[in-house]
């Protein structure tokens, strides 16, 4: 057993938890973040990559709109390398109510969200694939963000300020002394070691799993209603700006250019279990139909991969529990002292990735109040370390890097232009990582071939690095292909079937990968 003692334990390694541990550490508290999986493996890694301008909420949720606009400006400055300043359009499609655009412009003015109507011809000139029948177009400051870069950036910043980050540490128990939370028990899933972390305070940032964590501390049930949304990555950038439909928030109303793909999303269905998110065929069809409205011919474009995420929505008495789209997206800090007579713990729910820094500020402010201390939040002032701390992401950056090192470096993943050095360096940092852990940082296997060419290379290089043995190497390979398939088979049509056939031909046909020596057990993490 391993023992730690800190001021604050942050539970949950999504954007909220990473933002919170950074804030706590910057205010001078000793802190440790725990997550049962990798950073950004839950909701943060399963969204559509939109850095909201606030436009989406100017009519339906003015407070969120203002928060988004302010945070968008802050994050694109302090965390520039995770964010691409694509800009965005809100477009009125044929059949949509053109009057909504007037409400939109009024709402934008009232909430401080920069927006201006532009001629339809200008929108079509800049985004030639857009439906030529659009009636109105409004330009806003949407961007796209890499959720994993965002969360790792915040976590690394927290580490600079002295925090510890323990991934693959699953919380098993939360101890109380009297009415006060006193320790968090975890199991290090990679080594099997138990870890006990004594603490003064617990900040529950477990998102859709926050109810389970609160329950462990003996709080009354917290009604987190996971709202499932599916997203589909389409090959190439069908658009270079975020394109939103200028209507009340609905399913499939946003297309976001992220890295080399465009992501359409999303749906919103109440689910019971955030660990079991299906990608339903009818929802896929719904997304393709919605895409067809924005981009005629969308169905003929190549879908690469789909995924589902669970929104961490806190139940709001005003709407029925089945209607998660209209549940409050606003953040909610639950004070367990008033509610459950439990001191030393706060739970946060709701919110959105764009406002992750602000959510952290709120919950840490609330913690400071509880502790009777006055410590200023400085997270908006200090830049987060990144590859290029003052430059925003541009989609061509890897191409530029490979042009520079092409004579010295092999390209291991051609689709995403990942070099051998990028892979070996990430592996050295996470020698116990799975190929998916590395993928989230490197985009390994996320392009058109979905791992067809790079999976065996990555496995071979990992084995040669001596961080892993042959049994684990084969296990990692098997796990990676299995996990890629989860997001492939629900959207398999057109050219991606052809790609899958080629991949099967390589893996089954040429490499006979099914007849590698029998695994003693499958690798799970």
């Amino acid at each position, binding site marked *: 057993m391993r023992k730690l003692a800190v001021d604050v334990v942050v539970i949950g390694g999504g954007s909220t938890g990473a933002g919170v541990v950074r804030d706590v550490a910057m205010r001078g508290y000793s802190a440790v973040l725990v997550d049962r999986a990798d950073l950004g493996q839950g909701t943060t890694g399963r969204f559509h990559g939109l850095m909201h301008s606030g436009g989406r909420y100017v009519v339906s949720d003015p407070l969120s709109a203002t928060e988004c606009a302010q945070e968008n400006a802050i994050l694109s400055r302090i965390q520039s390398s995770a964010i691409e300043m694509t800009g965005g359009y809100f477009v009125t499609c044929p059949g949509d109510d053109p009057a909504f655009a007037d409400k939109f412009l009024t709402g934008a003015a009232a909430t401080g969200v920069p927006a201006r109507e532009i001629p339809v011809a200008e929108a079509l000139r800049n985004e030639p694939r857009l439906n030529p029948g659009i009636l109105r177009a409004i330009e806003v400051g949407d961007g796209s963000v890499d959720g994993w870069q965002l969360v790792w950036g915040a976590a690394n910043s927290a580490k600079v300020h002295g925090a510890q980050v323990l991934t693959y540490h699953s919380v098993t128990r939360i101890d109380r002394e009297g009415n006060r939370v006193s320790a968090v028990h975890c199991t290090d899933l990679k080594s099997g070691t138990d870890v006990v972390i004594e603490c003064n305070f617990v900040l529950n940032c477990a998102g859709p799993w926050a109810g389970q964590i609160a329950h462990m501390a003996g709080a009354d049930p917290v009604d987190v209603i996971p709202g499932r949304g599916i997203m589909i990555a389409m090959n190439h950038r069908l658009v270079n700006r975020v394109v939103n439909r200028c209507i009340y928030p609905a399913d499939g109303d946003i297309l976001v250019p992220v890295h080399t793909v465009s992501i359409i999303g999303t749906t919103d269905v109440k689910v019971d279990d955030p660990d079991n998110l299906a990608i339903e065929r009818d929802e896929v069809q719904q997304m393709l139909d919605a895409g067809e409205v924005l981009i005629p011919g969308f169905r003929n474009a190549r879908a690469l991969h789909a995924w589902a995420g669970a929104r961490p929505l806190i139940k709001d008495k005003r709407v029925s529990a089945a209607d998660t789209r209209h549940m409050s997206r606003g953040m909610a800090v639950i004070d367990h002292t008033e509610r459950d007579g439990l001191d030393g713990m706060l739970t946060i729910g709701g919110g959105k990735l764009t406002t992750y820094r602000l959510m952290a500020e709120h919950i840490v402010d609330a913690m400071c109040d509880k502790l009777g201390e006055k410590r200023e939040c400085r997270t908006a002032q200090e830049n987060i370390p990144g590859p290029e701390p003052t430059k925003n992401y541009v989609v061509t950056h890897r191409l530029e890097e490979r042009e520079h090192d092409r004579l010295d470096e092999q390209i291991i993943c051609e689709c995403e232009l990942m070099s051998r050095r990028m892979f070996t360096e990430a592996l050295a940092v996470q020698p116990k990582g799975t190929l998916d852990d590395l993928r989230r940082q490197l985009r390994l296997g996320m392009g058109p071939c979905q791992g067809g060419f790079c999976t065996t290379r990555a496995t071979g290089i990992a084995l040669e690095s001596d961080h892993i043995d042959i049994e684990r190497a084969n296990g990692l390979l098997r796990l990676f292909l299995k996990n890629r398939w989860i997001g492939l088979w629900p959207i398999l049509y057109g050219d991606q079937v052809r790609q899958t056939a080629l991949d099967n*031909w390589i893996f089954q*046909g040429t490499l006979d990968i099914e007849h590698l020596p029998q695994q003693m057990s499958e690798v799970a993490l």
Partner: protein
Amino acid sequence: MSRVVVIGVGLAGLTAANRLAAGGVDVTLLSKGIGGLQLGQGTIDVLGYTPDRVTNPVLTLAAIASSRPEHPYAVIGAAGVHTGIEYLKGLLGAKLLVGDVETNYQLPTAVGAIRPTCLASPSMVAGHVRDGAKFAIVGLRRLKDFHPKLVAENLARSALPDGAQPTRSKRSLFGDPIAEAFAKQTPGHLEVRHLSVDVPARENEIDSSGLTYARAFDDPAFRARFAETLRPLLADGETVGLPAVLGLNDLTAWSDVAEKLGHPVFEIPLPPPSVPGMRLNAALTAKAKAAGVRMVPGSWTVGFRAGNGGILGLSVAAAGAQREFTADTFLLATGGFESGALNLDSHGLVTETVFGLPLAGLDAEPLIHGDYWGAEQPLFRVGVRVGRDMRVLDGAGAVVHDNLYAAGGIIGGSSRWAEKSGDGIALGSAVLAADSILKELS
């Protein structure tokens, strides 16, 4: 002279075109892309798994032919495959292919699995696994598709599929005594180690493809340089496993390397581009051209004209303008989903993309499932149905067009990659189709 249009330039199309031209008809070979041979492993599979490992392919396929009526082998039959294999061997000769239809080689793959295949390049067969063999698996540092440690460590811990099998020999067709005998024996083992050498294919290039290396190995001076680097690192009695890049055009490159090293060598096929496949492709293409086959690459078929119970003409979008090819007979050898011969659209509709032919295997539910390591995906067994003369049939068993035949991967009913049957299906159906066409036209 009678005219035949063959569509598709993979193993089936090239084989059929050669046989048809040799039979005295005028053959036009239309191709859209580069042909499947250059994407595969570059050996000739007949049957590798049922799912049990197969040692005698022709014997086992006879059993499949009788027990699985939907399988292409049920119509092609052991005799058809035998004819196809012998025809290809005769066409290409022992410099390109060795082996026989009654015995599978068990050859290491580029991840270190042991893969059954029927005919192989002579440059590969020293890798046939046998108890007590000593292998040194050698990587090239600048070639990223071959990781010798992965190959070696998997081979070293593999129980050999055919135990103490000492030699390859003809065996009875009435049983598979070798397989039966070895099932009872203690499995054999290999002694395998790995090493890498750094011999640049091109100066100042760190990321060289298999094809780049193959071209380098065509040069005797490069082979000498390579052998000088590697020879001191080898131990007595070792057989050397190398990535399959030992020469593209020079079919003696591999044996020259072996001679210069003073050790037997074997090539291990890589993911595409497939150098051994390119060698087969080049040889079959050269033979076809020599036999008078007219080759029209870059031919995207965009429509067809039917009448009098048959196909009258096929429209192709070629450079400059659309153009129609007319013929007495058409042979469809376009492959499956991998080549675009079949398409699944976003609404779930599967189509054969040249003639819109009726497809078999669509009744499986679901066509695609979510268990990657589970059962074969039924989608990839979808294809056309053929009769014994290889004419395309509809669901009721009636001929769709009197003069339309099919060969190769477009024929449904098999899991070609998993069972390692694609080449046997291609060859058997190609020779049967060619022979039916020749008979019909004579």
